[in-house]
């Protein structure tokens, strides 16, 4: 054992001054760029801040926050949306406890946001005391869920099943209700709106389109010509046209191909369009993963005597799906953003409600910048946390390292 000489010792960590010099002023071009960039950023931030605080008029948002969140959902039935939210936040807290790092930033962010909204002195008649209390319960539930999840008393499989149950219960039972029921009277989807419908369409679209996408990807590699060519035809046609045309197909054209007496709900038709579109893209992503599995895996499984179904479900798919996590989450983010297109076929999603709020009062008409920026911010937050979770998942599964 020799003592490490000075030459082989690791370099000392750079001091702050060295870091600044290396990153900002390594040569004169860099120095120039830094000064130029700093000036641009400074003026951009200052003008943005002055606009947001002094010039901008945020009254459309403070006047009708509930419209943005739930649309025209009857105010006397609002407790149903509230109860759904509480279930979701509690599960979110539990998932944070069980799967730690993926959801931590989002859960903490949501808890803080809800807590702030509860005590925020907003002068608006729509934010009543019950709503403030409700806002305050959410962070408490997130925290309680976290404690429960962390205690390891609930296995992660149970949490996953709970999610599935809740996500089926909310859009199928709690929100629509039943005709003639006194506890849960029927609320037609035509009055659902705002962030509520954006989230329902996104979650529904993701959950339904994913299995279809996997089936299509398997179909495309099937040895049965009929299945294979049908899958190729479907995938290529759907990927070759814009989403608007597909939504339009389901909202207008589909009715001409169904028996005249049948009526499919407007929101369901939009969801069908989103699923149709997303399945084709998911299929192509999954196919990429399937192609990356070396043929030796399948041959080895065959040699062991596994059935085709088992080879696919136990050997090929688990490996292939892990490979495509990043692209699939990317696809989910774009699905989430693409739900705004349902506004074009007349559904009042978050964007649609924004436009409705602009027409609410004559003095709101010219405040488009404020309203659209607010909507953009909401979308940005959700997409950002989705890509964050994906990045963590990628690291945990070691994609690209095996």
């Amino acid at each position: 054992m020799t003592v490490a000489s000075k030459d082989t010792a690791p370099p000392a960590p750079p001091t702050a001054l060295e870091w600044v010099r290396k990153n900002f002023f390594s040569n004169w071009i860099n120095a120039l760029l830094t000064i130029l960039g700093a000036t641009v950023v400074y003026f951009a931030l200052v003008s943005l801040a002055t606009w947001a605080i002094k010039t901008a008029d945020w009254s459309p948002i403070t006047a009708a926050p509930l419209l943005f969140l739930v649309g025209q959902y009857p105010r006397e039935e609002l407790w149903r949306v509230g109860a759904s939210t509480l279930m979701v936040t509690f599960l979110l807290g539990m998932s944070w406890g069980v799967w730690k790092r993926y959801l931590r930033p989002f859960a903490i962010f949501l808890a803080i946001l809800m807590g702030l909204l509860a005590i925020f002195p907003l002068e608006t008649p729509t934010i009543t005391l019950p709503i403030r209390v409700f806002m305050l319960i959410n962070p408490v539930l997130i925290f309680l869920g976290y404690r429960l999840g962390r205690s390891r008393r609930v296995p992660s499989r149970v949490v996953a099943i709970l999610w599935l149950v809740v996500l089926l219960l909310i859009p199928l039972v709690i929100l629509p209700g039943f005709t003639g029921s006194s506890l849960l009277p029927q609320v037609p989807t035509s009055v659902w709106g705002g962030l509520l419908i954006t989230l329902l369409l996104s979650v529904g679209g993701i959950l339904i389109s994913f299995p279809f996408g996997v089936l299509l990807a398997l179909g495309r590699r099937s040895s049965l010509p009929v299945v294979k060519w049908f899958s190729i035809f479907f995938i290529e046609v759907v990927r070759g046209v814009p989403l608007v045309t597909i939504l339009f197909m389901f909202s207008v054209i589909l009715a001409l191909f169904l028996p005249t007496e049948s009526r499919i709900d407007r929101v369901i038709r939009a969801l069908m369009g989103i699923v149709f579109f997303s399945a084709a893209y998911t299929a192509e992503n999954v196919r990429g993963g399937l192609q990356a599995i070396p043929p030796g895996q399948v041959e080895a499984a065959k040699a062991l005597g596994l059935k085709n179904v088992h080879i696919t479900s136990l050997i090929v798919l688990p490996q292939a799906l892990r490979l495509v996590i990043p692209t699939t989450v990317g696809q989910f983010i774009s699905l989430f953003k693409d739900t705004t297109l349902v506004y074009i076929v007349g559904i009042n999603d978050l964007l649609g409600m924004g436009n409705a709020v602009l027409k609410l009062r004559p003095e709101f008409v010219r405040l488009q910048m404020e309203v659209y920026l607010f909507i953009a911010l909401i979308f940005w937050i959700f997409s950002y946390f989705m890509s964050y979770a994906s990045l963590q998942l990628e690291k945990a599964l070691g994609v690209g390292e095996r």
Partner: protein
Amino acid sequence: MVGDETMRRKIPLWRDERVLKGVAQVISSLVILGALYWLIDNFIAITQQRGMPLTYGFLDEAAGFPIKESFIPYDSTMTFGRAVLVGLINTLVVSAAGIVFATVLGFVVGLMRLSTNWLISHIALAFIEFHRNIPLLVLLFLWYFGVFTKLPAVKDSIAIPGFIYINQRGFYLTWPHLAEGGVLFAATLVAGIILAVLAWSVLRHIREVRGKETYFGQISLAVLVLVPLIGWFVSGGKPVLLDAPVLKGFNFQGGLRLTTEFTALLIGLAMYTSAFIAEVIRSGIQAVRKGQIEAARAVGLRYSQILSLIIVPQALRVIIPPLISQYLNLTKNSSLALVIGYQELFAIGKVTINQAGRAVPVFILIMATYLAISLLTSVVLNIYNKRVQFIER
């Protein structure tokens, strides 16, 4: 041999893979055909009831609706066919322009992202994250209603005098147009480009084969400049005139006018797509291994040579396939123009459906047109892609 025979006979029918596959084929065909039959049967019943047959004769009838913006002559007395063509051209124009801007901006942002300067690379990051996490539709609303409808009136135009005037009615740019002898000049310009490309490839080939310096770069540059220059003088020295917009009465005359709808769509689409292209460029350049560059340096190549011979060809292989799909996305996304009133293919299709009352034929026409654009673009770009990819042995 005999053993083989007995083996084959022993497999029961429900275990025989060929039989199973045959049965699966028949079942899946029946399901698909049955569903199709059901849909078409319903369709025929409904069309007979309402009297709107699946024919395209109506395309020759007068459209009867105006289109705000058209690159070919159109008025409302012309046919539905003509209107759809106007929409197609509008889609193609905004897509082509969008692709050019998005590529240039995407390259710049992608390179900024790779900068060693922390500030520059994080400005690029902010740009990318902003655009990738917000729906394009919201961005288009922001641009059109948030910015473009709030532009000043004509008399208060934002201006760089003599070059560009921006107001509520659009962008007015100074634009060159051909004057007397302009055709001759344009011809020499085209000829110059073709000759320069020819000279480049022939001389470069000679250099590669003979190993002798042929100065292909300098010679083709000279051709590129000299040939149009001759054309310039032959055509009398003023083949191209700059047409500047001038305020006459309540509006600007002359120059090139871009409507606010077109410009908002172009800016929104190009900036949104450029964020994605920037990521494509960045990953492409990062995919070139460091050893390649170090080896090139060790061999003694100059920096420009390393860039053009080592980095760019290898990065292109990674960049081109996702770049193709971004271009296609941009073209398909141009259909969102509907919401801000730029009338492209889908918007005009929708009006046509209302006017002609033939939902299905028009819809099939629009879908087929988008499919044709997508397929053509991907075929052309895939041919190019094949040329730059590795030839694996």
